[in-house]
């Protein structure tokens, strides 16, 4: 059995974002990068399945981006994936989801993966498109926003999270692609021995030009902060003073403090 996990490296979301000089994406300097949160659930699920099947499946982890994304691939290897594929693309941030999906689909096209796992969305771009588009391009069965996953006899039983806390249960025949969501599992922390072992695992580098055949279908024309609706009071400073200020406002504006 062959499994592919697609991961994206994204900035820490607690960072301050500034537009880059073209004004269409964020300036990368000063940002710390990590694995997209939703993709950690995908990696964990792939590794759990490998364990369930007695180590038989081979799990490949793929990431498209500049050289820094190798760090995210290494983390996935330390979590238990077997081999890495780095699609080297210094301009990945300028690609639209259609192009990213087509790169993944052209890599996966002749590899015969039985199962592909992606995050439900990237935290920075957040299009929630790449996984489903890959499935569509490859003709794989696909289910999104998984909070439950079970595998036996070539069939995935997946639990999708719907609005209002209801869940939808579906069965997928492999080859299949699933997009993973918070609540699916608890991603493990790589242990030191596993980090050491991961250093010996192979990471193949492929130049993006070998896989990218598509033009973008959409363009970002501006990246900017939200227009502040205003009205809200922002309190900053010494904690003791802040407590007094807040209590004063609550006494004034609400009826909860008598």
């Amino acid at each position, binding site marked *: 059995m062959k499994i592919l996990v697609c991961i994206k490296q994204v900035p820490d*979301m607690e960072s*301050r*974002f500034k537009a880059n000089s073209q004004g*269409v994406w*964020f300036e990368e300097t000063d940002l710390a990068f990590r694995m997209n949160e939703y993709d950690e659930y995908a990696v964990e699920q792939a590794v759990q399945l490998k364990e369930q099947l007695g180590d038989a499946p081979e799990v490949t982890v793929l990431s498209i981006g500049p050289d820094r994304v190798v760090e995210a691939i290494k983390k996935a290897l330390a979590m238990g994936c077997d081999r890495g594929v780095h699609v080297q693309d210094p301009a990945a941030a300028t690609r*639209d989801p*259609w192009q990213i*999906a087509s790169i993944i689909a052209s890599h996966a096209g002749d590899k015969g993966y039985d199962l592909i796992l992606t995050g439900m969305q990237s*935290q*920075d*771009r*957040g*299009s*929630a*498109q790449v996984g*489903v*588009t890959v*499935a*569509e*391009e490859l003709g794989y069965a*696909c289910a*999104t*926003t998984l909070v439950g996953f079970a595998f036996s006899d070539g069939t995935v039983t997946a639990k*999708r*999270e719907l*609005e*209002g*806390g*209801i*869940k*939808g*249960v*579906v069965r997928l*025949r492999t080859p299949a692609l699933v997009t993973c969501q*918070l*609540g699916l599992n*608890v991603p493990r922390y790589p242990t030191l021995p596993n980090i050491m072992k991961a250093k010996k695992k192979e990471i193949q580098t492929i130049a993006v030009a070998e896989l990218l055949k598509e*033009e973008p*279908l*959409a*363009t*970002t*024309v501006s*990246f900017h902060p*939200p227009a502040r*609706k205003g009205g*809200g*009071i*922002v309190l*900053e400073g010494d*904690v003791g003073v*802040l*407590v*007094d200020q*807040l*209590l004063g406002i609550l006494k004034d*504006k*609400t009826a*909860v*403090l008598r």
Partner: protein
Amino acid sequence: MKALLIGEYRQGKLLDSTFELFGFAAQLGGETAFLLVGDETRLPACDGPLYLAEAAECGEYNPDLHKQLILQAVARENPDFIVFVHSSYGWDLAPRVAARLKAAQVSEVIGLTDGGFEVGCCNAKMRRTVKPSTARAVLTIQAGAFPARQPNGTPRIQRLAATGNGGLEFVGYEPAEAKDVDLTRAEVIVSAGRGVGKKENVPVIAALARALGGELGASRPVVDAGWIEHSHQVGTTGQTVSPRLYVACGISGAIQHLAGMKKSDFIVAINKDKDAPIGEIADVLVVADVMQFVPALTARLQR
């Protein structure tokens, strides 16, 4: 200009979010056509063509088949836009339709700007303006971003049919977990988010809730991590609340959380990040470390 709006139907009902599509279409301008995999007794009173396939035959969730039905309607209507709600139904189906049409997709649209669509990015902290380069585009709109609008007209019903399931079989629904805490009646809710750092810190937030005579709430990651029970979760997959006072401790303000608490009378957010999106709806944003500020506040209230 013409938009094909894709309605949503679940557990035998037309979902209310469907009407936000009409609100969006009114801002977009132009003609509309509507498509629903549902039943004849629950249809919106919209003008123009209404493509209907029976959920009893086509399933409520059968994305490959629904995609084919939508493609049939697209071939007949030739719309400029195909519009979904960005929901578990829409985000699942939209990319399939876009890929088949090789059309641009813009996800989770929150507004219109000249020729482009406004979307959130970087966990809702920033915005992008996106322009499709293809003549036809697929859009998903953020739930709650556009006002719901009840159309008032007479649809021309056109029946659609298709068969197949694309390797996916729908097994059934699992009901939501029962609630043992009814947050909907609380006057004060103090919620803990991932910013509280660890499970051992939760009692500090609970103590503030008690000092204010309120209940403890939680964001989703805190529940998933097992720090607080699911019955305390606020948001789209938790409870929808509207207390007199809502205190968000270490919560960033993701759309799914906001959807559950934005109707609160007065919102206080405590966050170390001045740019956290919760600041957009908070009446007061206290820029501080929760673990320093909350105990100090509780101590003052107890004095």
